């Protein structure tokens, strides 16, 4: 009898909790989806260097960006021909994810935006800072993008690494090289097939 009472209690408690949570879910789920959508689209707009005010990200995105579905990847093409895409790969301490955009010439970078990373704050974490990322503008990634010691970069395919964050810098170098060349290739094919 006691066992029955216990089981009954657990069942009732479980059901009540679940019902309450499903209620909370219906409230918050749409908002959460929208937040994720805004996050991605804001990053894309940032990478394509299209300005927008907070709150109007979605509207501006729908107006100024064209989505090209290439099977495994989605490309976001702006009116001036620049193409943006998401990238994801290993950093030193954890995965790095972001949005990169390339110019219509398909061999130079327009902008890089880091959406999430788990590097050491203040050191490797600086890869997400605007001050570090702005140097990528216009840099070419063929034959490959090379990270030089801070202050030593000169050629059109060289950028400065972060002093004191060799691991994170190297990880980012590997990641960018693989995604930039791969996606430029896919995009070229897609555009040629039209």
């Amino acid at each position, binding site marked *: 009898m006691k066992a029955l009472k216990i089981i009954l209690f657990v069942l009732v408690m*479980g059901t009540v*909790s*679940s019902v309450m*949570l*499903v209620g*909370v*879910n219906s409230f918050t789920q749409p908002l959460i989806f929208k937040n994720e959508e805004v996050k991605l689209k804001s990053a894309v707009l940032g990478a394509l260097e299209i300005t927008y005010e907070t709150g109007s990200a979605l509207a501006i995105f729908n107006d100024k960006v064209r989505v090209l579905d290439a099977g495994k990847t989605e490309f976001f093409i702006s009116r001036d021909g620049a193409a943006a895409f998401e990238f994801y*790969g*290993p*950093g*030193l*301490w*954890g*995965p790095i994810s972001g949005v990169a955009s390339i110019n219509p010439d398909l061999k130079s970078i327009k902008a890089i935006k880091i959406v999430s990373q788990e590097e050491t704050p203040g050191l490797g974490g600086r890869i997400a800072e605007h001050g570090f990322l702005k140097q990528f503008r216009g840099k070419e990634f063929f034959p490959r993008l090379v990270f030089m010691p801070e202050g030593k970069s000169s050629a059109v395919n060289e950028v400065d690494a972060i002093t004191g964050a060799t*691991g994170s810098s190297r*990880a980012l170098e590997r990641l960018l090289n693989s995604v930039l060349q791969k996606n430029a290739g896919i995009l070229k094919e897609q555009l040629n097939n039209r």
Partner: protein
Amino acid sequence: MNATNPLILLVAAIFTHNIALVYILGMCPFIVISRNFKTALGMGVAIIFVVTLTAIIIWPIYWLILVPAKAEIISYLIFIIVIAATVQLLEMLIEKFFPPLQSSFGIFLPLITVNCIVLAVCLFMVLRKYDFIQTVFYSLGTSAGWALAIIIMAAIKEKMMLISDVPKGLRGAGITMIIAGLLAFAFMGFAGMITLQ
């Protein structure tokens, strides 16, 4: 989906991404249990068992039942109930079939239910979308890493009790924190050994 080699996950979870010294989880028992080498060993072994077992049970429950049913909202609820149930079951099994083990690590089992790392492993596994094999290796590595940290702590503290003159205010929890900080620093030296996706 993650493409990381499970063996790499295992090694990384023990060293470069040690859950106690990098993610700072499982702290409450960490402070209390690490007084004594033998107890730490017992607790460590118990944790490895429980974490791996619960991860193995929860992975299919999440991916094969909750996700298709779009019921992710109750996932934490289900996780904690499964964890509690698994620990209860384990306790009963040990009492019935392996009484000698009861004294060496059976007594820690009730404590483990509230140990953050059991739930943490499940949460990370969901967050990083590991597949089944990765989950097994990850849970094994994480619990082994925690066990390693707690055993090292216990060994150091036991020695300290004998030879150091710890200031009154620092005794107990305070000095444990300082030691943990130094250990965390030391483990940072492993960074770059592995790149973890």
